[in-house]
């Protein structure tokens, strides 16, 4: 014992001296010393993070939730892809959420989380995110961190300039990256220039329930609508979108869509269009799209196919849509906290152009036009320009803002973040990222009220930053302190999928409202079992419905007989617990479909079609108590023609 203590003391001394050495080495540099950085991101055991960070799961199709400054992963919220851990897309209740007009789609690509806002400030109620491949927008409820609604977007392809919320979340907007024939029919791709259009979608959100309704789509010239942002304050009635491929190329876009010196930022007065639509402008066309809604009381989703949508052309809504020229192949389109500046990020540009909203309005009033495209006036570049940020680095993509009048732009090609001033558009600081930064995020940094403490870089390339894991490496984010003049790298943290955009807000905007349990008395699931005495088994033809309850630590019933080969067995399991953090799991041997994870007060259903006669075990898969191992039962399966009656026990 004594010897052990001595050895451990010696060990401690070695560790302490090593820390000291590394500290004194780092002390002289501009970067934060390792120990300083460590203490800046250290969240002691039992302490909580200051910010939530909602990060797109990229090609995983999901949304990941991290804490900042620790970079710890708390949860992956399933959205556009099945998730076995949460039965998402496997349980009968959640399958409809992944239905589309093309049927069930188990995997999509998610890009841009945006948070609901009240008066231009994130309000912590919902996160919206886009399904990029089969165009959809999802609404995630931050009370229980679940996807509550997914609406498909017709007439779209590559749903990339999406979703972005207006400043009071009146609308969530989405824009198509790839133009398509509208209506989409069997035409030669060579008809691109005449038949292909780009749809900009406006989804109306009900302020109280959050419910979506696809209000209208604007059919724009067949460019590629890349990213977007709503105005705020004085520009709050306007949406801004970047677009490239003003060449209307439909092959080898890499070259053919990069011919023009300038592409465009589209400015759309949505408020004025809303008024036109209210007068009945535009037309209703036939379109098929799915609208999926998850009901909190039935714990079940429904999927409905809608068959029409209102479309408006620019000619239907005069004075509402303008093109602002912007340097070559723009990507990000970001509006500063005051609502005056619109910053375009040109992938192939050597400057960052900053447009002025007030100058744009004057240019419209004075008709400072430079021609028109398909009836849409093109404003003069210089008439709208507030200034250009010179020598920002290479490949400016996206810009976020702090609360001190500064902007932070990600530079993809030169792998850095460039901080510049909104007063004189001069570069203040640059800091390297590792490597090839895409999006970046400041808490509230896209809103009227940024919490300018950190900027997070979401990188496209990881290379040598982590222990290797074969050809595929973890995805990577980096946290920088921006409280001072100089940006300081504090932390690398791994992320899932490819992190595209993200949202971050103070934890106290969300944590106090977090759901702990679903009240069993409010459970209106059609197959709920509200008390153990009601647990039972019912046969309807070749369907067997098992009304089962779970509580620490037993199922009722736990011995079931009378199931036959050829039956479709529905296990409707209600978790009777009413205590926080006590889910129960359910798994039955040989199930080709699902396991379940059932939250307190919730009912979930697994479907099982046993193939062979015999006795099968089922059990709880989520450790629930000291007697979790005993939370198990048996179901007897008889041959197809047998006459074993349905029986069950409700006792120990």
């Amino acid at each position: 014992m004594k010897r052990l203590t001595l050895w451990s003391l010696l060990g401690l001394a070695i560790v302490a001296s090593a820390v000291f050495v590394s500290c004194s080495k780092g002390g002289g540099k501009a970067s934060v010393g390792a120990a300083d950085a460590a203490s800046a991101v250290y969240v002691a055991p039992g302490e909580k993070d200051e910010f939530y960070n909602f990060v797109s799961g990229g090609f995983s199709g999901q949304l990941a939730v991290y804490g900042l400054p620790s970079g710890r992963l708390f949860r992956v919220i399933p959205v556009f892809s099945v998730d076995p851990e949460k039965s998402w897309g496997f349980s009968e209740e959640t399958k409809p959420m992944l239905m589309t007009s093309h049927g069930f789609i188990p995997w999509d690509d998610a890009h841009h989380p945006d948070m609901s806002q009240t008066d231009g400030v994130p309000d912590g109620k919902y996160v919206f995110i886009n399904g990029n491949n089969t165009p959809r927008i999802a609404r995630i409820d931050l009370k229980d961190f679940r996807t509550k609604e997914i609406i498909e977007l017709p007439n779209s392809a590559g749903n990339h300039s999406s979703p972005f919320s207006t400043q009071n979340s009146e609308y969530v907007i989405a824009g198509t990256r790839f133009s398509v024939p509208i209506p989409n029919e069997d035409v030669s791709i060579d008809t691109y220039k005449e038949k292909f259009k780009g749809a900009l979608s406006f989804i109306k959100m009900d302020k109280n329930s959050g419910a979506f309704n696809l209000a209208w789509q604007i059919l724009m010239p067949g460019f590629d609508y890349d990213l977007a942002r709503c105005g705020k304050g004085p520009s709050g009635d306007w949406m801004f979108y970047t677009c490239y491929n003003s060449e209307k190329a439909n092959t080898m876009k890499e070259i053919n869509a990069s011919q023009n010196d300038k592409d465009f930022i589209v400015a759309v007065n949505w408020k004025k269009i809303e008024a036109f639509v209210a007068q009945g402008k535009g037309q209703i066309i036939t379109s098929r799209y799915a609208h999926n809604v998850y009901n909190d009381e039935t714990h079940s989703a429904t999927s409905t196919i809608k068959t029409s949508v209102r479309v408006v052309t620019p000619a239907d809504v005069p004075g509402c849509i303008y093109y602002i020229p912007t340097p070559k192949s723009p990507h990000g389109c970001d509006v500063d906290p005051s609502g005056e500046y619109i910053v375009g990020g040109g992938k192939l540009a050597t400057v960052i152009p900053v447009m002025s909203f007030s100058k744009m309005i004057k240019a419209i009033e004075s008709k400072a036009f430079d021609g028109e495209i398909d009836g849409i006036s093109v404003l003069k570049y210089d008439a709208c320009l507030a200034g250009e940020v010179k020598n920002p680095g290479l490949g400016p993509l996206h810009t976020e803002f702090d609360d001190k009048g500064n902007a932070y732009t990600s530079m993809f090609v030169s792998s850095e973040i460039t901080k510049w001033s909104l007063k004189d558009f001069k570069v203040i600081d640059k800091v390297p990222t590792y490597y090839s930064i895409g999006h970046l995020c400041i808490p509230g940094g896209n809103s009227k009220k940024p919490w300018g403490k950190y900027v997070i870089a979401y990188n496209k390339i990881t290379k040598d930053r982590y222990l290797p894991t074969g050809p595929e490496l973890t995805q990577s984010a980096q946290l920088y302190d921006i409280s001072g003049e100089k940006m300081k790298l504090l932390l690398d943290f791994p992320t899932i999928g490819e992190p595209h955009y993200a949202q971050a807000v103070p934890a106290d905007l969300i944590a106090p409202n977090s759901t702990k349990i679903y009240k069993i008395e409010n459970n209106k699931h059609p197959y709920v079992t509200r008390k153990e005495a009601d647990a039972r088994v019912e046969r309807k033809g070749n369907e067997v419905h098992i009304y089962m309850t779970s509580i620490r630590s037993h199922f009722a019933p736990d011995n079931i007989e009378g199931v036959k080969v050829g039956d479709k067995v529905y296990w409707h399991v209600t978790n009777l617990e009413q205590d926080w953090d006590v889910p129960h799991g359910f798994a039955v041997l040989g199930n080709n479909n699902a396991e379940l994870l059932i939250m307190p007060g919730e009912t979930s259903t697994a479907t099982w079609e046993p193939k062979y006669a015999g006795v099968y075990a089922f059990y709880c898969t989520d450790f629930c108590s000291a007697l979790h191992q005993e939370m198990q039962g048996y179901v007897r399966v008889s041959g197809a023609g047998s006459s074993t009656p349905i029986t069950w026990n409700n006792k120990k």
Partner: protein
Amino acid sequence: MKSTITRILLLAIAAVGISISFVACSQEGAEGKQEESVFEVKQEKKVYGKIQHVDVGEAIDPTMAKAGLDVFDTKCSACHKYDERYVGPALGQVAKKRTPEYIMNMILDTEVMIENDDTVKCLMQEFLMRMPNQSVDEKDARNILEHLREKAK
């Protein structure tokens, strides 16, 4: 090396823990080892939990008792029967054996009772299952108490 020290420490902590709970229970155990004996304790020395005093009176309020039965069926009956040991103790006579405050605090402040109350600590050793907090509100807990009082009549 580290793990050895940790293990020794853990053992020491566990030993202290066991001896404490052993002392607490052996006093009650002296009256007998059967389940019923644990139920002999009529008056708790100290009241733990948020309900420091309940006025129950003599008569049973049938409306409250009926409401209590409904909540009991949903939130309690999966583990408690009236006249047999199940996952938890039988509750048919509990209103005679426990104070109204004990019953309500066990429902409302389950964690506090499990941590502090000697009788509950002994029951924990016997049943090896922490009673879950079933998020019952105070009104419903009072109704459950009325239901259990009716049962114990």
